[in-house]
């Protein structure tokens, strides 16, 4: 089967999976459905020949599942009844989003077709990457050599986000030493 057919199958699977995850009442089942959607993304990356991304996405999935389950585990959870105004709001939102989808079809027709990329910036990397950096993997050559400052910025952003999370979770008892998630308030 051609790659496009596989991708259509995987994307349909992911759309159904995310709708189910959003509509389920049980939060644990919803988080697990999102995990399945993420593994679908990983599989799609494999079909698109992006091996590094598939591995990173797989790891991301596992960590995100652990973090999200940590968010609501052991907490009392009440299911709220849907009110009339909420139903009206949902219907209006779905209508507006369908309209956006219909209007966007023309935009996707104007793009270069699937399987025919523009490929202008990357030409230099592909032709000279092996000689200039000595790395066989062009993706890691770009990350760690051509665009190393991007990676430095990425690490800074990640550090700041983790620092923010620890600051939010810090309680007064821990005295700023261990910023872990102490639930004792």
């Amino acid at each position, binding site marked *: 089967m051609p790659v496009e057919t596989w991708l259509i199958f995987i994307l349909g699977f992911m*759309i159904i999976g*995310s709708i189910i995850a959003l509509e389920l009442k049980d939060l644990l089942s919803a988080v697990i459905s999102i995990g399945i959607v993420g593994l679908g993304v990983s599989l799609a990356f494999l079909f698109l020949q992006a091996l590094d991304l598939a591995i990173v996405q797989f790891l991301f999935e596992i960590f995100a599942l652990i973090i999200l389950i940590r968010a609501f585990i052991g907490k009392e959870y009440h299911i709220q009844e849907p009110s009339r105004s909420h139903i009206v709001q949902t219907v209006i939102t779905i209508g507006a989003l369908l309209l956006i989808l219909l209007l966007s079809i023309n935009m996707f027709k104007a793009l270069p077709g699937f399987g*025919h990329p523009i490929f202008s910036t990357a030409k230099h990397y592909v032709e000279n990457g092996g000689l200039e950096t000595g790395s066989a993997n062009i993706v890691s050559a770009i990350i760690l050599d051509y665009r190393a400052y*991007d990676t430095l910025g990425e690490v800074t952003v990640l550090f700041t986000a983790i620092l923010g999370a620890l600051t939010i979770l810090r309680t007064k008892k821990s005295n700023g030493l261990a910023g872990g998630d102490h639930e004792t308030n």
Partner: protein
Amino acid sequence: MTVYILCFTLFLVGIYGALTKRDLIKIILSLGIMGYAVNLMIILFAYKEGASFAILVRDGINSNMVDPLPQALILTSIVIELGITAMLVALSIRLFQKYKTFDITKIRRLSG
């Protein structure tokens, strides 16, 4: 083109969840779905018909490879997404400690 439209539909499902759900965890999940759709869309733009992965092999046979630049950028994006998810979860845990609920319509007193 069908692939692009399906990917955009996935993004719209994420927007739908973020707009209509009242549960904080569901809103975080919707943001995650939107992130998946954007990452996948950019990698879809990079795919070349019949090309193979962007790794050089011995004797230089692998001259036909997919566009490696979007892959490098998305690798960065995925890792940052994990940091964002962790921070959102930390915020929601904190809100739960204060208000004893995940329902955003009941979280009204945004002071102190």
